[in-house]
């Protein structure tokens, strides 16, 4: 024992040390990652973020410099706080609280003391900066929106949060990333690749020299400019028309799938989300749970499509051969099925063929057609699947898989969908509301616009997209390959004829534009909300879909105005005006324009929140806008004149 005490102690300590070394160096997670090594200073060189242009080359988004006052608390020396505060235009309390925050964050790391100084403040401060040790100014690049349009399309950039940094190690604290819209979907293209310099520092945080002589340093790669498919003039026009209303407009060029405009109302000035007040303004927009300005209604708004969906049923019926375009179906001011009755506004006894069925939007006609489609196979269970597949071939009921940052799949039901409600028996009458675009079918405005584009093209569409051109890059094949629907080309003509008649003789006959053959379809959709848990009906949504001209179509459009009542009241007028603006460049139907500009739906939107009983549809009176407001809108319009 006496001889081995030291021997055992030596062995024991040796093993203990090896165990400790194992714990420190092997067991603990020590990635030899330069980025996480705080002995190495990472100096990033941020490239210029790419500009965004409209389809005609008009600059929409550029950059502007901004100056952040940074602080490294450990390096701060006693200073004249009074002078410093007055230069920064803050009070002493704010100085103290921010300084404490910075210190708590880390005494050694830079902290944004005051973000985004104005150029004027910067100029004054810069000369005196040397007096304040530990503080310095960091230049950053912010977005500059050249116009006030397209907030929902263009999106914005903001500082990355912890979740993004965890997901993508490219982003570091304080980096900017596209948060919405194009900025988000083309983030990697626009941002480029930042350069990095690794600098060895010592424990006093001084730079010693480049790490390994700059072996790992990289140069920044500039972000690429992007040309979008948006037509700035048309976009601006749509936003003016949608003032004081809620809803969306989507206009697509059918021959390419390019999105000409994408209006979501209400909108906001994108410059609100730039600079020092970004988070304040964002919170304000975000918290507006009634108007929901950040909610892109043309992409995310899922609504029952209403009558425009009848076009779809007509096409499926022709393809399935369950009706010919000449066959006439009698309407008894409605459609009787079993012991139930679906009303129609046709005079009882009217006999409609397909063109007139579309023109008059006859419910009985499409109920009949829909039942024939479902009942064509041995049972309606098979029939509805056939129907569903045809409808889905138009891009309905599914994400369009495009370059828009947000979207909704909508809903096109098949037999599986109904398994819950109708486990055993399933007859065509059960889902008859689908015949007229109500019931279980649901679509977003962009899906409707795409459906119209496919009709305009007589059987195919290009995935709607927002990207027109990236320098030195070819577009994704997804956007340049046509997608064929399951409907043969010849079946489109009677439907298009019907849509033309909507303008010439039907529900949109007062919305005609001289010299342009427009094919359209109105829609009026009942809708309900719960007020104090009572299901209450609101004024119908006003919907309109159209394309023009009939031959060689240039524009396909879907307009959706929440609680706008019947289709031609708001949506139809807006669609006609948009088409005229795009094709002719000037407006001849000033009467339509004046109507749209003069009327507001704001009081309609206020009704469900008013707490008092209210009337809807026929019982409403339209709110007119004070003349000054209208003049302001008109002043904006004159700026758009070529």
């Amino acid at each position, binding site marked *: 024992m006496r001889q081995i005490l030291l021997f055992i102690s030596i062995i024991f300590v040796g093993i203990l040390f090896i165990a400790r*070394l194992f714990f420190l160096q092997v067991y603990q997670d020590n990635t030899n990652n330069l980025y996480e090594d705080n002995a190495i200073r990472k100096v990033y060189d941020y490239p210029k973020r790419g500009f965004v242009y409209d389809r005609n080359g008009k600059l929409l988004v550029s950059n502007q410099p901004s100056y952040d006052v940074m602080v490294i608390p450990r390096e701060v020396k006693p200073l004249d706080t009074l002078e410093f505060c007055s230069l920064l235009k803050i009070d002493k309390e704010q100085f103290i609280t921010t300084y404490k925050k910075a210190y708590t964050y880390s005494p050694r790391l830079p902290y944004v003391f005051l973000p985004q100084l104005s150029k004027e403040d910067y100029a004054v401060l810069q000369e005196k900066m040397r007096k304040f040790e530990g503080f310095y100014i960091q230049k950053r690049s912010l977005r500059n929106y050249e116009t006030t349009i397209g907030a929902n399309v263009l999106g914005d950039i903001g500082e990355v949060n912890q979740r993004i940094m965890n997901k993508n190690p490219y982003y570091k604290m304080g980096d900017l990333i596209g948060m919405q819209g194009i900025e988000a979907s083309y983030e990697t293209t626009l941002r480029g690749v930042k350069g990095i310099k690794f600098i060895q520092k010592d424990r006093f945080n001084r730079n010693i020299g480049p790490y390994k002589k700059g072996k790992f340093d990289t140069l920044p790669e500039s972000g690429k400019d992007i040309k979008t498919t948006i037509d700035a003039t048309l976009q601006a026009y749509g936003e003016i028309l949608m003032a004081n209303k809620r809803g969306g407009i989507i206009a697509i060029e059918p021959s390419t799938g390019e999105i000409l405009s994408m209006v979501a109302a209400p909108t906001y000035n994108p410059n609100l989300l730039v600079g020092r007040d970004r988070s304040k303004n964002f919170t304000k927009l975000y918290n507006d749970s009634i108007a929901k300005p950040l909610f892109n209604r043309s992409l995310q708004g899922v609504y029952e499509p209403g009558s425009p969906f009848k076009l779809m049923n007509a096409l499926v019926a022709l393809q399935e051969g369950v009706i010919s375009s000449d066959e006439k179906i009698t309407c008894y001011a409605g459609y009787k099925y079993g012991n139930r009755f679906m009303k129609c506004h046709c005079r009882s006894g009217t006999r409609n063929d397909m063109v007139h069925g579309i023109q008059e939007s006859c419910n009985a006609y499409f109920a009949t057609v829909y039942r024939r489609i479902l009942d064509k196979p041995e049972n309606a269970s098979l029939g509805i699947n056939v129907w569903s597949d045809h409808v889905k071939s138009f891009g309905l009921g599914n994400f369009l898989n495009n370059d828009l940052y947000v979207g909704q799949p909508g809903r096109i039901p098949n037999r599986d969908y109904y398994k819950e409600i109708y486990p055993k028996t399933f007859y065509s009458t059960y889902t008859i509301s689908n015949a007229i675009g109500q019931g279980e079918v649901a679509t977003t405005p962009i899906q409707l616009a795409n459906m119209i584009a496919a009709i305009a093209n007589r059987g195919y569409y290009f995935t709607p997209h927002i990207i027109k051109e990236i320098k030195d890059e070819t577009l994704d094949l997804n956007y340049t390959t046509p997608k064929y629907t399951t409907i043969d080309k010849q079946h489109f003509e009677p439907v298009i004829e019907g849509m033309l008649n909507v303008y010439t003789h039907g529900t949109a006959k007062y919305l005609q534009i001289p010299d342009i053959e427009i094919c359209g379809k109105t829609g009026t959709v009942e809708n309900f909300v719960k007020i104090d848990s009572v299901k209450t009906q609101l004024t119908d949504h006003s919907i309109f879909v159209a394309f023009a001209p009939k031959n060689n179509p240039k524009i396909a459009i879907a307009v959706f105005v929440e609680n706008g009542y019947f289709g031609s009241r708001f949506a139809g007028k807006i669609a006609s005006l948009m088409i005229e603006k795009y094709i002719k460049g000037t407006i001849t139907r000033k009467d339509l324009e004046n109507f749209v500009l003069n009327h507001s739906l704001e009081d309609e939107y206020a009704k469900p929140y008013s707490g008092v009983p209210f009337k809807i549809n026929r019982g409403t009176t339209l709110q007119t806008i004070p003349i000054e407001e209208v003049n302001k809108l008109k002043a904006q319009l004159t700026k758009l004149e070529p």
Partner: protein
Amino acid sequence: MFRQTDRHFKFDWVTIILFLILVVFGWMNILSASHIGTTIDYTNFSQPYGRQLIFIGLTLILIIFILSIDAKFYERFASLIFIVSMLSLVGLFLFGKNVNGATSWYGIGGMTLQPSEFAKAATALAVAKYISDLNTDIRTFKDQIRIFIIIIIPAFLILLQNDAGSTLVYASFFFVLYREGLPKIYLTLALTLVAISILALKFGPIITSVLAIVFIIANYFIQKKKPVILQPILTVLACIVIAFGIKFFYQNILQPHQQDRISLWLRLEKDPQKIAQMRRDILYNLYESEKAISSGGFSGRGFLEGTRTTGKFVPEQHTDYIFSTVGEEWGFLGSVFVVIVFVLLMLRVLKLAELQKSQFSRVYGYSVASILFFHFMINIGMVMGLIPTIGIPLPFFSYGGSGLWGFTILLFIFIKLDSNRINEW
């Protein structure tokens, strides 16, 4: 002076090779830890790595000198060497130079010399000489006291120079005395004292006292040969006094920074945020050295590639914290290598000591192993955060002429003694 031509072949080459490995590898790490920027100029003698080259060169001369002297010389002049060494320690109070609060150096021209580094070898000689004296019986209280005085003189002088770390090294002679027959009761007492101190600090003196009482009562009833009832009662009282005394000592006598070191070591502080804060502020050195070691990972970052080493993140890295350089640049593999080389060296010395025929050589060899072990244990243990911060160098590794020479003299006197083993018959 060589009596036989093949004399030098009788030196224990294993020990010498292990020594050389440590010195050379140590210098490489000093180079890493002390070069500035990205340029290295080996002839720059104003830098630690350059100066250490000179020190190593002088060490080789010193080794030849030590090995050339007759082995009997060391035994014969042990007392004189000890007295000279103690005088050199006393002289510090008159001529000493104060560096970082410790008056441990003589300034000679541009050089400094630290006599406490040589005092260890001198004390080892003196202890060996005294124990090997035919009249000495370590089991007697008289001789225990005398040996204790021999050891306590340098320890006390060094403590007065404010170098608590080096003082602690003299505790290593306990191993030597125990090996040579010091009664077991001292070991029991020492272990009990350590246990009670830790328990009293960690769980408070009351719980510790209760534990001690329970333990001693249980022990009393288990023992077949019952001692006088007074003995356990006195033991209990002693335990209680120690428990409360330690608490008092910790709270009132230790300086705040020493309290914090112990508090962190024993995890007395519960608030994790405060611990993190303390680690950053008080134990900045340890915090950085642990980080440097950790960042080495399994295979290290490579020679001269350690970012924390290059950036001088660990203060005193070329001296007391040199092992963190090994950790960062050579990783787990390199660190384990160093630990194993040290262990082998100590075990080798220990084995040779046991083989000595003369008691003087054996005691001296044992002292060498014990002193090396204490330095090894305290230094690396501290750098890795296993024990509280105590600043002593890592033998053969840390930068510094005095340290290197002190350990070289210590080790090579033994190698010389060992080579003379055959003549002892």
